[in-house]
């Protein structure tokens, strides 16, 4: 049944939603920051592309690139971006089990167990990459 407006229709109060709705509640703010973090993921992708391009262009170009990377401003931006990407990863891993209910032997596997393999893979791959880079 669609909403029917009749002769006897009282004036409903329709509250407007403010543009700053997302500041009103901690959970909303967390959500918006989570969505925003994808921008920083994109930023790192772009940085990596620049890095590859610099590699291709030879040792001078790469040295230039390294100098830019070492400037305090860029380090500050990268630090913030890194925190956001960390946030992005953790929230993503934690949300994934909702989208994919896993059943073993007729019972639902608890969410943290479904998320656990992602974390384990993350730590393992990070460990391997760190070893490769730092040795």
């Amino acid at each position, binding site marked *: *049944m669609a909403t029917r407006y*009749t002769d*006897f*229709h*009282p004036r409903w109060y329709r509250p407007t939603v403010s543009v700053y709705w997302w500041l009103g509640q901690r959970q909303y703010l967390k959500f918006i920051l989570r969505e925003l973090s994808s921008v920083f993921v994109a930023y790192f992708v772009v940085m990596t592309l620049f890095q590859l391009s610099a590699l291709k262009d030879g040792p001078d170009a790469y040295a230039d690139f390294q100098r830019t990377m070492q400037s305090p401003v860029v380090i500050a931006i990268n630090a913030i971006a890194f925190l956001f990407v960390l946030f992005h990863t953790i929230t993503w891993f934690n949300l994934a089990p909702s989208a994919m209910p896993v059943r073993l032997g007729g019972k639902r596997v608890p969410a943290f167990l479904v998320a656990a393999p992602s974390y384990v893979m993350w730590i393992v791959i990070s460990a391997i990459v760190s070893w490769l880079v730092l040795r």
Partner: protein
Amino acid sequence: MRAAIAAAEVNPKLSIAVVSKVYPMRSHTVSAEGGAAGVAKPDDSLDEHAHDTISGGDWLCDQDAVEAFVKEAPLELLQLERWGCPWNREPDGHIAVRAFGGMKKRRTWFAADKTGFHMLHTLFQTSMKFDPITRYDEWFVTKLLVDDGRVQGVVAIELMSGRIQAITAKAVILCTGGCGRIFPFTTNANIKNGDGMALAYRGGASLRDMEFVQYHPTGLPFTGILITEAARAEGGYMLNKDGYRYLQDYNLGTPEPKPVLRTMELGPRDRLSQAFVHEDRKGRTTSTEYGSVVHLDLRHLGEKLINAKLPFVRELCQKYQNVDPVKELIPVRPVVHYMMGGVGTDINGATPLAGLFAAGEVACVSINGANRLGSNSLPECLVFGARAGKAAAEYASTQSAPNGKALAQADDERRRLESEFLNKTGGKERIATIRIEMQATMEKSAGIYREEALLSESANKLRELQERYRDINLDDRSRTFNTELESALELGFMLDVAESMVQCALHRTESRGAHQRMDYPARDDHKFLAHSVVHRNTDGTARVDYQAVTITRWPPAERIYGQQAAQQGH
């Protein structure tokens, strides 16, 4: 809902209105927990279900109605399954059934412990498929339009806007439920005020068996929230203040570690409630802020079973009484739960007033007699809902349209509501005061045990309250969603219904099922194997007559439970 669907299926050309003072999913059916009985397994038979029902009802049931009921109940439950109801299942995929108090065999279908919820939502969602059904949600019916000896529709207030209007109809089916809110401690929701019973009573139809009020033996004190019979069916014990399983003192068998059908904690509800009153008189109940209680002990069942079979019970205890049944005792007392009486109908839901039908708790067919067995009321709604829907559709198809005089009555009703409530000045009484006094007097004299002196006192008190009701003052004069007006009208309904209940109780000088007279403790089949029928006189007083019960195949016998029953092969 069931009636509407049945009517739509019988004659899709009819336009069907479902008028309700609340949205459909708020109806009190939603709170029913335990289950719905229907013969489903090969070790069971229709005759056994019928016999359990009739003996449980202390032989006041109309046996032709019961025979029709037990036959159609499994079909209705199956139909609901086909509409998507998520019944619990056996491992092989068939419907699972469980034990229930008063039933000799396992025949109660259930959906976790939210059976009523799933049934109501399945019906509501299925009803959305049918185009002929139009819903008038949050329209409060104040009066039946009766003209020419025929019901021509209703007058209702559209709560949203305050508009008072006639909805004319060739047939009206009342499905408004019971009237538990007449009592102070009840499992019933705020909306159960006997609306349909009062409407029919005022409109000229008769009410039947109004003295039979069923108490559920285990309700939480203060909130009245029901702790389902299933908790006892799964093996809970009832203990008095000394931790003793007191039911063994009241002819209900001997205590066994596991539940045995029809004995001890699985005996019929009225016997359990009566046992409480006796324990209370002996001083063996525990006193609390909200009255005396006994305790329900589920601790020995273990956390795993409680979480699997009784999750809702656990949730209710924790959320509303701050008690965890896994570790603690649950305080319980008898609370008003169901009204066996109601608008008298035949086995097709038709009342003697042409065009008026009724089904469900508001009706008295009667299949519940003097005491209803647990898990019979949900299938009752389905079976008689469908029958009433069908009968009303067939009746309506043969009728001419309602005449204009009905609309004039609607104008009168609007003027009455305005002058008596909305625009009235100078009243001194508050709704809540009168309501609380009504509830107190009903609990005192029309409770589990009754006697003449208290009943007469109550009758006088109710007359006084009716007078004071005319002097009510509303704070709320608004037209928009005026729930105070709604409460006032509901109180008016309750006062009428309460009067009919007390009068019926006064006249029935015997004890049978849920009606126990301390001054007449024996059952008297000679004089009282009959339904009380109460009509409203023009001066507002009640007139009580009797109508014989239909007996087909089961002559009256004694209601026996426990050891005696096992010995006699019942």
